[in-house]
């Protein structure tokens, strides 16, 4: 159990989140992927705090708050998306097409 392992796990989680972000059609699935990425970041923070000291954990606290706020707003937008398109598929909402 050392710093490298934790960081490897964090980057794995992050990349899985990126994969989810790029490939999922449903808005909620994308939010999940985002959640995943945020957690990866927090994990890295904690790992550094543990193995190298420093205020890592403090960051995580704030990060948590921000993530929660983001999810709340995200879901509100998903509700609007659903109400407008009767479906949460993201690629249907392309009104901003040039």
């Amino acid at each position, binding site marked *: 159990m050392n710093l490298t392992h934790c960081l490897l796990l964090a980057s794995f989680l992050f990349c899985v989140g990126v994969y989810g*972000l*790029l490939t999922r059609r449903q808005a909620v699935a994308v939010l999940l992927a985002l959640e995943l990425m945020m957690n990866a970041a927090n994990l890295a923070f904690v790992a550094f705090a543990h193995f190298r000291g420093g205020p890592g954990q403090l960051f995580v606290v704030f990060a948590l708050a921000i993530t929660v706020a983001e999810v709340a707003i995200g879901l509100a937008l998903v509700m609007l998306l659903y109400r407008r398109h009767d479906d949460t598929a*993201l*690629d249907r*909402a392309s009104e*901003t097409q*040039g």
Partner: protein
Amino acid sequence: MSSLQSWAALAVLVPLAAALLCVVLPPLRRAGKPAAALCILASLVATAASIYLLTQHEAGAVTRTEVPWIVLGGKALASIGVNVDGVSVVMLLVVCVVALCVQVFSLAYMHDETPSSYGRYFTLHALFLFSMNTLVVAPNLLQLFAGWELVGLTSYLLIGFWFHKPSAARASVKAFWMTKLADMGFVFALLALFVATRGFDWNARLSTETATLVTALLFLAVVGKSAQFPLHVWLPDAMEGPTPVSALLHAATMVAAGVFLIVRADPLFAQAPATCEVMLWVGSITALFAACLALVQSDIKKVLAYSTCSQLGYMVAALGAGSAFAGFFHLGTHAFFKALLFLGAGSVIHAVHSNELADMGGLRRKMPVTTLTFGIGALSLAGVPGLAGFFSKDFVLAQLEGKAGWIPWTMLMATSFLTAFYMGRVLIKAFGGAESAKAHHAHESGGAMLLPLVVLAVPALAAGFLGGVLAEWSGAEYHVHLGLTPVVASCLAIAGLLGAVMVFGRGRAAPFAGVLESLDRASAVDRTWSGLYRHVLLGVSAVAGFVDRYFVDGLINAVGYTTIESGARVRRLQTGRIHDYAMAVVVGALLIALWGVLR
């Protein structure tokens, strides 16, 4: 400014005042007769001034006053003013007298015009007199050029006086363009003179090749204005204008401006023998060429037009031979009898209502005075001994005999024979022989038309004897001697006349008329000029127009088009779908990271 200059200035400014008054007060011009009266009054004043100048002028005196016209950095770059010397005084008199006679003649000749165009006619005449006088009394070549162009303008306006006739419109524009093309030479001459001497004075001492350059360019302008060989095609077409205009401008004064320029700028021409040589040949060729063509013209005015061309060739040849006075003397006498001939022709045309010689015939019984005056003019032109033409033409030939080679001499001798021959033809066709239908009910013209004829007949008869006085004034030597040339010339003149009587008396055509007629109809020179204009100039301009509209402008449009088109394509990148944007963000981050790592 001594009294002489003020009189000369008067002769220039009074016609200008009359013209400006008519322009500024349209009711005066539209009234017709009052405008005519004003202009004739102005001509009278000008003539009186010139006569007074003649009497006061003592030989050899040159008085010149100049007012700075353009001042740059304190120095007068160009100036205008008045220059009174032997040459300008005589020329002023000739111009004013002929102009006065023509204007009086026009009173009757143009009486069936509407009052407004009648007024316009006389306004233009006043403007012409002003321009010609400016040219005659010019103290430097720049003012002479200004007069030169203004005279070109009035010729353009007067040829196109009956502008409802498309042929008159074309003729006036053709005249202006050809003279403007030739005047390009005058401009270049002025530029060369200015670069060499920072001034426009004709007494400048120049190196021979600058002098040759300047004089050659000046001669180019003279070829245009005095209708010498290549550029003579506009003169016959200029006959579209009213006959008094042809008499004044295209016979006596305007076309003589070219010869006057050479006489005026004689100090320059003296320094350039090469140009004189060219002048000699061009003059002789024109004289002979024009005389041949005059022989076959059916329109009386065209005959006189070509005759003018031919006589101008005489004068240019005389100047080419180095004798300025010979050219000038012939210019003076020619102005009088050619104006007389044209006014005579005008009176005949007015009576017969047609220019064609075929419609005339046997007018001697119906129009005795016109016949007599026209006869005097014709004989004087032909060079019959005793008349003005004889003295001046033979003096030219005498000068030529000494200085130039024998070919120009023989050409001019042949021309004098041909001149007598075609004038004989005109006399017989118009006044001799049986009456044609139209000539039947012709009647003698009124007093107003006959008086000028008579007035002009006097100098046509007597001007020859004034040769001595004139020579003394302009400081040239002149003596009448009965050498070989005068005798041969007069015999040729008389032979020409008799030949005409024998040939045309019996109604037969001239021996080789057929060839000349086909030559005239072919009018190769005229066709080359119009070809040059239509195919070369308009062709090149059409190409330029196309290049500008579809290449240079096209390029700008293409730039505009590509901008809009590329904008449209880039716009398609914005798909509006979030995934594409997410992909762009991630890939971008990745690339930056890679760049950071690999750098």
